[in-house]
């Protein structure tokens, strides 16, 4: 295994994945502290855990995304990190436009279009250059292979979720898994996982990309036919799998026993870390195994984590007490995210559309007019009435075409509400020609808590503050942040200026 971890199971026998009980799904309990269920794993999280369980701990508890990085990106152009999203958006758009005949399939015309679109996404000049670094070879290769036009049955960024069984040589884990397919071609019967990683001369796909594609295939091949909406309904067990880099395309084998083993291994770590009863031991075990191996000089060449071997500063001297306090925050933010995001995902999987509507999570509607980025929909008068009462900041939603198990999901916002329906802005994606859609409100609750992504941001800031410090005595003495931390957590004197003890 690339990360050097032992491949035996951390806990044996592996416990069953805990799904939320009925009362949790129906919102009949007061949500507090530890959720009585395990997280809803995503393909990204499983791949990350397979690469290194410590990356998963950093992701769930410290808000660090820690991607598996390209050696070249890491060494030469760190600015190119984060260019993946525009790369995916633009490659999809180019294929769509060429397929529709809106764009000529020539190198100069496509490049010009990319610059125009990149500008409309608000990319800076340097970002456009970075993007071109990846997209130029991709366009060249696709043109040579004659595969730059999407057909009417090609879909991009299709979200899939299903209950999947992974059976290793020693154990079986049965859980839900969520993922996003970069490109699904029904005519060609293949799925493509696209990436900016990969070397021009390599004969193998980038590290773990083949695994990621295989996991996505496991999801779609495990789906019940009834859960797949009609435009996409078919048997996916024979679908071909490809990983596409800017330079080439690699086919992935569907039958792979090692991948099954790896998934059970990764899921068992996630399961043990998310259970409060085993969390501390598991994290200690992960750190214990990772840190001695991961010195800066010996670091895995594709590991993007910077903090595992960072130097400890002398000040603040109360760092152990800071850690003792902050570690509860990390877990609490993780649990809060589970209550908000993972419970929502389970609700989508377990409850019927009527039950979801009753809970104010999902509203079904009919599309009456659409143009790029804007939709006009009509809906049931009672649903419309509830939508009308939403305050401006509550009108952000998710537009779902298809079902929660298989569909195209995009960020959306209700712009206006009239007598029959409402008008929605949405982040453009190629949609199938069906007239039904759903609007999802993931944060429907009595108290409008803060969005999930802010939990990650807070975890990251707290973790960075815990690691930050100064070495020089003089600098520490005059530094207000160090002095504040020493006053709150250490033994220094803290005054608040008054005489009233709150």
């Amino acid at each position: 295994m690339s990360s050097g971890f032992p491949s035996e199971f951390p806990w044996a026998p592996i416990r069953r994945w805990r799904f939320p009980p009925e009362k949790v799904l129906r919102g009949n309990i007061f949500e507090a502290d530890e959720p009585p269920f395990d997280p809803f794993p995503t393909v990204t999280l499983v791949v990350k855990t397979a690469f290194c369980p410590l990356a998963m701990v950093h992701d769930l508890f410290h808000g660090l995304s820690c991607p598996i990085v390209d050696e070249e990106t890491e060494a030469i152009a760190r600015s190119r990190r984060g260019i993946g999203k525009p790369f995916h958006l633009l490659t999809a758009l180019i294929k769509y436009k060429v397929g529709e005949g809106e764009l000529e399939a020539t190198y100069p015309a496509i490049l010009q279009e990319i610059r125009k679109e990149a500008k409309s996404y608000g990319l800076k000049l340097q970002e456009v250059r970075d993007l071109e670094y990846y997209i130029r070879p991709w366009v060249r290769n696709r043109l040579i292979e004659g595969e730059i036009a999407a057909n009417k049955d090609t879909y991009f960024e299709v979200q899939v979720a299903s209950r999947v069984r992974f059976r290793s040589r020693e154990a079986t884990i049965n859980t839900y898994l969520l993922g996003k397919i970069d490109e699904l071609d029904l005519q060609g019967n293949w799925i493509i996982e696209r990436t900016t990683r990969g070397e021009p001369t390599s004969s193998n796909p980038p590290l773990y990309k083949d695994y990621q594609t295989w996991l996505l295939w496991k999801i779609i091949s495990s789906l019940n036919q009834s859960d797949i909406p009609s435009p996409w309904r078919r048997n996916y067990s024979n679908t071909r799998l490809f990983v596409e880099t800017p330079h080439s395309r690699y086919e992935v084998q569907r039958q792979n026993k090692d991948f099954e083993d790896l998934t059970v291994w990764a899921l068992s770590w996630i399961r043990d870390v998310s259970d409060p009863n085993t969390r501390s031991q598991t994290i200690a075990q992960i750190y214990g195994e990772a840190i001695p191996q991961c010195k800066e000089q010996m670091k895995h060449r594709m590991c993007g984590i910077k903090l595992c071997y960072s130097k400890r500063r002398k000040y603040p001297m109360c760092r152990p007490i800071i850690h003792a306090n902050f570690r509860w925050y990390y877990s609490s933010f993780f649990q809060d995210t589970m209550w908000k995001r993972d419970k929502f995902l389970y609700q989508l999987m377990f409850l019927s559309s009527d039950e979801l509507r009753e809970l104010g999570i999902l509203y079904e509607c009919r599309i009456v007019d659409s143009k790029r980025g804007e939709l006009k929909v009509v809906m049931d008068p009672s649903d419309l009435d509830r939508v009308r009462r939403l305050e401006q900041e509550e009108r952000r939603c998710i537009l779902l075409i298809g079902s929660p198990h298989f569909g195209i999901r995009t960020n959306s916002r209700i712009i206006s509400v009239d007598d029959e329906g409402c008008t929605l802005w949405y982040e453009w994606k190629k949609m199938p020609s069906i007239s039904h859609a759903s609007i999802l409100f993931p944060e429907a609750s009595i108290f409008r808590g803060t969005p999930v992504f802010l939990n990650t941001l807070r975890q990251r800031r707290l973790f960075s503050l815990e690691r930050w410090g100064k070495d020089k005595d003089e600098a520490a003495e005059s530094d207000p942040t160090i002095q504040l931390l020493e006053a709150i957590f250490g033994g220094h004197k803290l005054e608040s200026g008054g005489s009233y003890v709150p």
Partner: protein
Amino acid sequence: MFRELHHSEKRLNNLDEIENNIQQKEEEFLNKDQLKAVEILQKESVQPNHFLLPIVEGPPGTGKTTTGAIAIAKKLSSLARRGRKGRYLVLCFTHAACLQFKKKLEWVGVKKTDALYLTPYSRDTDFKRGIVGAPPDLAGLPVGVQRWLGDSPILITTLLGISRAITSFWNKRIHLMVDEYSQVSAADFFACIYKAKNLNPYQLSLLGDPLQLPVVTTQTHLRPNICTFINPHGRGTSAIGLKTQYRMHRDICDAINEMRRIFHTFALRPADRVADRTLTKLNYKWNPPQDPTLRTILDPDNPLVLVDTGNLGFEDSRGREVKFEREAKLAVKIATEASRAYQKNGKPLRPQILTPYTAQRNCISSMLPKECGECTTIYKAQGAEYPMVIISFVRSNPSRFIGFLDDGQLTEQVYVGCSRAQAKLVILLSFHTFFEGGHQMFRALERTPSVIKIQGENLRS
């Protein structure tokens, strides 16, 4: 527009006006406690033998924002007189609170373009009013505007929007003030400290009321606000308590004090100018309704009225959605009658209806004519004040269960709701459920000496 502003104005060019204003406001509006707070809010945090983290505890209507605004203006003008540039970063929990703080600074004499409010929405940008919308990294803002922001003496933004201010003030030392700390969890505070550490704040200070609504979260560990977190660790830290309130009539203040007693905290004293504040004293013309019960409820000389809705039936509870339609109808009726009974300059009074439940808010809003008032949740109303407040507490059931209103961390809903009223407070609740259920905060309301109790069923028709 921006170019005009940028070239024509030097920052803080009205020092004389600000100083005159400060002097006048200090004499006219500030009491002894507030003056002490203003003085301490100007000191630096790193002291030779201790760290000074001023905590100003200001219960509702005690003028903590006024105190903060005057302290900022005073410090900036004294620095400017010595030829030094001061910079303040004010962090509030909500956008509404940011605008309120900005208004207060303008009231002290600080120009609109010297106290800039940073928002995430670029559509809200209005340079003349000192509002700038930008993403956290200020991307998309012209370099000139970025410099203008960095040169600003005061930036106001939300806690979660701190990145905008940090990018603007990059490499410049600041003073950092956090308003309404009851909603700032310790975790949020430390996350902000991490962002602000590069700006080496001269001073950090906290303003707020620990009894205001708590941090909203599913997690017990995230609930303590920064002040309650510091105190057990604080080795006797002591806040500056503001004890005189300038908002509520004496009777309403009595009810608030009864609740404060439960929290073992100091009592508030109504300032002379508000002690007898009734709707008629606020220049509303009183035209009594015919119905004797309504007349009693709306009488300006009865500032605090409790209406029993227990006989109207039971609440309708579906999952977490709880509403009580008959109580909602009653609230609408009282609001409608109040807008008929009171007029000021030819315009009817618009009472504010508050409720802890979103479903009840929706129910009331659908029945309430626009001209007769507005209905919001108590959460939404935090920080605001209204001449007349009607509260619908919704719960009515034989088991006397009042849901989260009895949760140790959320009982503050009652306190916050009641303390929004200036001159008249009408509370609709089931006496059987709330009083006989032995719920402390509500027993405190019942104990208030000047309270008038009415049977809601008399108003059924």
